[in-house]
């Protein structure tokens, strides 16, 4: 009998990740991630290997914005690559990416590109604009992020 992971399509694999992330269930999101996943989050300057790196990215977001809402607008499947376009919205409740908490509202359009294989996500690359993020969090300068 084949494992459930092997029968998942690339779209289903990424949809399972997005659904879990949207309900802040990080364990469920990481369940569809290859332990040796390559993680690149360009706005954070993050390039690492391993599911723990991605777990930390997701946990930081949920910790910083406990009412985080993920609204997926498009999921584009091109072979084993799945690209998800979504908006992340929430109210800051803790420090995030160096920005102190001023209880500002965040709404950022993002694109995450996933590579899948064997029913798991083997590569994640995230794109969003940190200028937009800092603007919404009332940060004035990139070289003095914690000063408002």
């Amino acid at each position: 009998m084949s494992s459930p992971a092997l029968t998942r399509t690339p779209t289903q694999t990424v949809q399972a990740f997005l659904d879990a992330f949207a309900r802040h269930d990080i364990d469920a999101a990481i369940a569809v991630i290859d332990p040796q996943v390559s993680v690149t989050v360009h706005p954070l300057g993050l390039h690492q290997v391993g599911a723990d790196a991605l777990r930390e990215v997701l946990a930081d977001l949920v910790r910083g914005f406990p009412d985080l809402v993920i609204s997926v607008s498009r999921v584009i499947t091109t072979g084993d690559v799945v690209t998800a376009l979504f908006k992340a919205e929430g109210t800051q409740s803790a420090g995030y990416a160096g920005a102190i908490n001023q209880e500002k509202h965040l709404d950022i359009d993002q694109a995450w590109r996933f590579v899948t294989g064997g029913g798991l996500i083997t590569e994640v690359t995230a794109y969003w604009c940190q200028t937009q993020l800092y603007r919404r969090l009332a940060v004035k300068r990139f070289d003095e992020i914690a000063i408002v």
Partner: protein
Amino acid sequence: MTEVTQRPRTAESAAGVVTEFFDRYRAHDVEGMTDLCSINAGFCYVPVELWGKQRVLRADGTVGTIGKPLWTGLIASFPNLSNTVHTITSNDDGDVVAEVDIEGTQQLAWGLITPAGRHYREPHLFIFHVGPDLLIDSITAYWNDAGISRQLGHNEVD
């Protein structure tokens, strides 16, 4: 009657159109880039937003009205503007996703950034849709504009 034969749209032919688009972009052939797009092709550069006192201007419209002037201005400000295409993936519905580094050395003002002769190189994700006529009918791009600002020596968020 003249019969026009045209390549069918497949994942491969759609990807070929996008490859040609970046070749022309690298050659600073803005007219050629536009020629690969349909007349009302949609255009959205998500990170571009200029906050005024009463409204926010976004790079969201069509290739003809927003994209073409933006590309022309970018090339004027960064005369050695170039791109490196890392991956292109596509499907038979005409969706094409490209990971591309854009780079250049600033010679003229770009937005609020005064020229200091600095170079930037920033990863971009482009999402295209290529129609059945093998013309691009939608371009959307994402990148971290803070990365560009900081590389050009501009540390103010606005």
